[in-house]
């Protein structure tokens, strides 16, 4: 299981929520699911991040009913959140591409 890189939690949350409204525990499960179980998040650390994103206006929150009929708080992406996700995804792709190119270089190419 991979350690989460600093600063990547926010973008993972945005991504998870972009696929549909979710409560906190659901976000945790979805991140596990979409990363193929490779990324694990410290459970309690999720909530300060959620609230921060809400305060920044990237997420909307609303109380609703969970699949097993309990009151839960559901998060959805705002327009600003969608835009931020797009930017972060783009810059993440670029840096991954750059890193892979750099790390796959062989002696002959230099």
């Amino acid at each position: 299981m991979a350690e989460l890189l600093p600063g990547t939690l926010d973008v993972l949350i945005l991504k998870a929520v972009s696929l549909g409204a979710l409560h906190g525990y659901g976000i945790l499960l979805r991140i596990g699911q979409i990363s193929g179980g490779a990324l694990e998040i410290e459970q309690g650390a999720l909530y300060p991040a959620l609230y921060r994103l809400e305060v920044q206006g990237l997420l909307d929150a609303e109380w609703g009913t969970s699949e097993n009929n309990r009151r839960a708080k559901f998060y959805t992406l705002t327009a600003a959140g969608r835009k931020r996700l797009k930017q972060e995804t783009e810059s993440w792709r670029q840096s991954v591409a750059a890193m892979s190119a750099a790390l796959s270089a062989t002696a002959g190419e230099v």
Partner: protein
Amino acid sequence: MFAWVRKLTMRGRLEREMRDELEFHVQARAEDLERAGLGAAEARRRARVEFGGVESYKEALRDERRFGLLEDAARDLAYGWRNLRRSPVFTLSAVAAIALGIGVNTALFSVVYGVLFRPLPVRDPGTVRNVHLLTTGEGDRSSYGSRYFVSFAEFQAMRPEARTAELAAVSEAGATARFAPAGLHLQLVSDNLLPMLGARPAAGRFFTKEETSTPGVGSVAVLSYDAWQKYFNGMPVTGATVVLNRTPFTIIGVANPGWYGPLVLKPDLWIPLTMQAMTRAGEPLIANANAAWVQVIARRRPAVTDAEMRAELQVLGQRAVTVHEPRRKAVVTIAPGAFLNYPDVMSGAVPVLAILFLAVSLVLVVACANVANMLLARGFGRSREIAIRLSIGAGKGRLVRQLLTEHLLLGALGGAVGLGISQVVVRLLLTALPAIGGNQLDVSADWRIAGWALAVALVAGVIFGLPSALGMVRGSLTPALQAGPGKHGRMRLQGFLIATQVAVSAVLMINAGLLLRALTTAAHLDPGQAVRNVLIVHVNLRNLQYTPEQAARYLNELRDRSAALPGVSAAALTAFEPLTDSCDARLRPIGENGMPGAPVRVSCNESGPEYFRVMGIALRQGRGFSVVDAAPAAKTVLIDESFARRHFGGNALGRRVRFGDSAADDYEVVGVVATTRPLNFLAGDSPQVYQALKGLRHLEAKLIVSYGGAAGPLRQAIQNSGVALDPDATVNVTTIEQNVTSALGLVRLAAGGVAALGGLALLLACTGVYGVVAFTVARRTREIGVRMALGARPAQVMQLIVGQSLRPVLVGGAIGGVLAALAAQLIRAMLYGVSPVDPLGFAGALAVLAAVAAIAALAPARAALGVDPAVTLRHE
């Protein structure tokens, strides 16, 4: 803004929602675990453990919510406050250390500010200005009080012309009256001073312009409210006559309670400026246009700037001086109204203040180093918290900002407590100082003093916080926290901080040691003159309106009567108080060829017959003064051996010295006396010359009487003789022992002050040493256990711990010793010949320092001996 208010008012609901949300999470997880096959109770337990510290996350959530729309700063502040509250022992000791440092610093500032800068306690002080007039160039000008005062003629010339400001005048004097046996304090004023500065009559009226315009006219007086209560019990008093200095005055009014005018000493009465002559009989300064004795206080008019006011007064000032002294150039400056806001006071105060501020700043430095050390030690405990904050996306800069906020908060708390401490210290200081009776010095905290404390606190906060904040973040970025390279640097930094504290304490302690040595040395010094069994008799002859001839007759009579009293061995007159006072002069020794040599700076006195017998000063050659030397035409002088040796090759009798410019000012040396040493270090060690007491000087002369046996009855007998000669006389008898004490007073004060500060610094440094050793022991418990398991003896373990901890103490002590020797050069004049590297002073202070530091190191180190190898090896 509205959203923010709503957020706060909805706090209860938010708390509930937060709890619900986290609770939902844990339950959902538990249900999943249950589905995976765990028992219900076990599933719930696991879910909770996995989630971690609910409460700490709740705190983090609260931060996010509560200040959602506020700035980061507010959030940092709340975070910092919570952190400080979480470790009360650390917070209390850090705040105490900073508060002590800031307390002594602010106390000094309060006094300096109160005397030199605080706005005057009068109506609308913002537009009150002190007007300074300094003249330079040829001609004779004498000043009384400050060189920046003006003469009565100059004030009268400037006042009606001034358009930019209203000018008022004030001066002060003592007075004698039958109804006030202890004497009275007078303020001499122009008619407008009281109303201009907001005084209102509590009874009667104040002065008119006619009463304060013509010298010698205006025998009316206004009482202060306190004096009215004290001497007249608040009975109707206007129209009554009081006799001040044998001059009748009519009381015309009483000032409102709490109003004391623009000077630091509270007056009992105000009288017109024009009555100056009777306050200084024999020398009417008011008639002399070249005598500067009037202090000018101005009220700037509306819509005028300081620059415009100064420009106008410059022109008026020069014109007023030119009238009677065309050769002199006048320079007018103005300054915000304050008690002693005069350039000569300032320039005199600066060197003393610099040393004092240096000393209190050193204590603050020690306090800062101390707290920096505590923060470093605390940093170890917090590395995990920092690591978590970094991993959930907090930026590095933001983290430093957060820690810095916490440190500033700590500093501000220290500043607030320090402000309280300073108020206590200032009051103690003022009561410890020789009584400055009836002053209106205000040292209470106002916004400027509070601002000073806060500013110092914040600067201190940045200084003591920066090393740990940077170190903590740098350390936290390396993943292997426990074994990272940051640890070593931190240890070094701690050592450095300890060394700094010890060095500073050493500087203060050693200098205190030197001053104490100087005091004992001075007490056993042979000053070459009497230091005991001499009474000094003061009579207020000026206030009795005596002429110089009457004064001479009175004093000679009193001297003869005193000399006849039983137990008295000799009695004499002197112009200056023995041991504490003298005059300065420049004179030129005349060579054998009749040519004057280079000017020599000497200390001088004027005295009558028998003076040298009373003072126990040996006559080496020639004769002492006799009655013939008091004749106006007699020009004789006695010099001391050091002068005789240096300028006359030891053979001085019959030679001449020139006090002025021409041969008319030549004095013949008729005797040589033993060299005396001044006890007052401010007097320096110029040679001493003595002239005969003559004429005008009799008005201020004192009678000195040497005696054997008990002083008490003799004092009473002399007092009775003095009053018998004039029933109005106030005869005040003091002892030469009192003069010895006051001559050493400044050194005693300095020694006490530096010792107190040094003790404070040492206390702080020792808590620092204690903390570091305790911390080392705690951190190395495992290592100690291993060593003991392998057979190390307790002594060896102690040696290891204490030895390492004391290394910075030794380094600091050595550096402090060197710095102390340099600092001692600053106070060399106060050391009475004790060397700035006096071994006794150094050894004593360093021994105290070493002993206290060793105790501070040994006490916590003993904990290491209690380490049980079996337990520590199982540890972790």
